[in-house]
């Protein structure tokens, strides 16, 4: 177990260094190189001495490998630069917004698990019946529905026509008061979860089907256990294991979805901050957010894999 954990953590660190490399490439994508990067931050009327000072202060005049080493050091010490548009360090902004996005993503994952797993089981138990086909078609449609379109439709129906839920997500500053305003959270969470519910229920269905063909299920039946016990204890527990891996794998997609959901519902999380940064050409904040989103995803996948190892002894000893 410890060996597995160490290997998995080393892998995560390598991926984070890779993320640094991507960030580095992004910084060097600016047409005109570092000079124009300085101009974007200092403005078009900056003089050459000012630009030179900026380059020296930010280590941009050093050899390329030194620059990269500095960047990796900054990322691991959570020094993400300074947002000149908002006049605040990027890490401060991100730390304010991150908990809200984690809350939104967490609730969406929770909803996904609560809905998709029973749905998949239900489909297996009534496989190849009309209800199974109907649910499969529905999950195909929801899987294909862009998050923002679903969001718009939900606002149209539930906020504009029926006035059941507010059209805007909670605007409070703290996580606690956001949770207290749960009515406003319903639509964003549903919009974000819909795609993954569709994907997960299909995966759950095939995973459960596969589990039911395993030898241990036949053994369980042969020794006279009830169908209920075979289905829910023997098959289900094994079918659930791949779902955890899927959770780790789809996390980047859910975080991407959060970006759109936050934009549609004006939810003051990291995605909205990122979107505003993109519109304002606030490049330090833009790139800093990518780093944090990637790191959060890597950590999330790491947690999913650790959970996987805890639940499935076969993984631990490989």
């Amino acid at each position, binding site marked *: 177990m410890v060996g597995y954990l160490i290997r998995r953590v080393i892998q995560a660190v390598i991926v984070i260094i890779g993320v640094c490399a991507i960030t580095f490439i992004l910084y060097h994508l600016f047409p005109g190189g570092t000079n124009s990067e300085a101009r974007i931050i200092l403005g078009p009327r900056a003089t050459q001495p000012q630009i030179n000072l900026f380059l020296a202060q930010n280590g941009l005049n050093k050899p390329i490998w030194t620059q990269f080493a500095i960047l990796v050091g900054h990322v691991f010490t959570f020094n993400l630069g300074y947002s000149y548009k908002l006049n605040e360090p990027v890490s401060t902004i991100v730390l304010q917004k991150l908990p809200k996005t984690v809350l939104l993503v967490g609730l969406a994952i929770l909803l996904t698990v609560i809905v998709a797993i029973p749905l998949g089981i239900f489909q297996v138990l009534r496989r190849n019946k009309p209800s199974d086909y109907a649910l499969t078609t529905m999950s195909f449609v929801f899987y294909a529905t*862009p998050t923002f379109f679903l969001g718009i439709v939900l606002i149209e129906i539930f906020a504009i026509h029926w006035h059941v839920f507010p059209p805007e997500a909670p605007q409070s500053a703290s996580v606690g008061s956001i949770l207290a305003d749960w009515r406003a959270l319903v639509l964003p969470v549903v919009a974000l979860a819909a795609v993954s519910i569709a994907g997960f229920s299909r995966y759950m269905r095939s995973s459960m089907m596969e589990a039911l063909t395993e030898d241990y299920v036949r053994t369980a039946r042969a020794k006279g256990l009830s169908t209920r016990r075979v289905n829910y204890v023997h098959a289900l527990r094994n079918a659930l294991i791949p779902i955890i891996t899927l959770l780790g794998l789809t996390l980047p997609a859910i975080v991407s979805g959060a970006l759109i959901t936050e934009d549609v519902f004006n939810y003051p999380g990291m995605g909205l901050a990122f979107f505003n940064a993109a519109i304002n050409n606030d490049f330090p904040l833009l790139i800093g957010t990518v780093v944090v989103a990637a790191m959060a995803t890597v950590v999330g996948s790491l947690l999913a894999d650790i959970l996987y190892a805890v639940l499935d002894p076969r993984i631990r000893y490989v």
Partner: protein
Amino acid sequence: MIPFGGAATGKDTVVSEAQRIGGELTAPETEVTEAGEAGGIGGLGKVIWRVFAENKLALVSVGVVVFMFLFCFVGPHIYVTNQTYLVITNVNQVLAHPSAQDWLGTDPNGYDTVGRLMVGGATALEIALLAAGIATVFGVFFGAISGYAGGAVDAVMMRIVDTVLSVPTLFLLIVIAAILHPSFWLIVFIVALAAWLVPARLIRGETLTLRTREYVQAVRAMGGGGGRIVVRHIIPNAVGTIIVNATFQVADAIGLLAALGFLGFGVPAPGTSWGQMLSNGISYAQEGAWWLIYPAGICIILITVSFNYIGDALRDAFEVRLQRR
């Protein structure tokens, strides 16, 4: 049929060559029929076509895709509208309700919505097919080389894939779009950048098993180099996986493109895409301008569902081929 041919855009010659060899090498027992028999996917045999055709939903999906292509590329010649410049002479032409003249009304700029759907759809389909094609070709070569080389090369190449996969795609793509201002080809490149990872992984996995096969050993014994083995033996034998995945890539590319367009990083005006149309239409939702939202949204869903169904049916068809071997 357009969709299959289109999905391979970018390197048609390689793919068709691959299919030809694939047909000869991997499926000697399956009846190799003339190209076109199997719905345009080449000489992969009647069996695949038969299993595919058994799936009624997949056939309907092919119909939807063909209809969409006709609608977007032939439609503008039949239902002629002005989509390039703005001449608003009458205030009633802006945000007009559906009428005999404008079947789905007009948008806030006075453009006819049906005509807009055609323009937006053509852009979306072109970008999605190009991006999926480029991503598939690149991903296939990347994966095949990585899997064939093995060792340190493989480890480094796959860590690259892992890293990019762990970054939430949309964040990365928007940063690139914000730094380099969006144009048609930049968007193709951006969508392809997100799409090549999955084929690379799949083909690497496939290569790991294929490279131990006897015929690969035989080529090596006869003095065939690594390049020849990868291009003429490994990739052709993975063609089923490649085609199935390319279909899914098209569906994903349309979704991603819609998301980019929605967030304001789409093709420059007067061009548009379905996602951009939705993004512009949302401001008028409260005024009841349903024709600015639902048609574009339904188009995105229809085409994505169709490509996903086709991909699913193709996967079943190729699996049957493998089972019968």
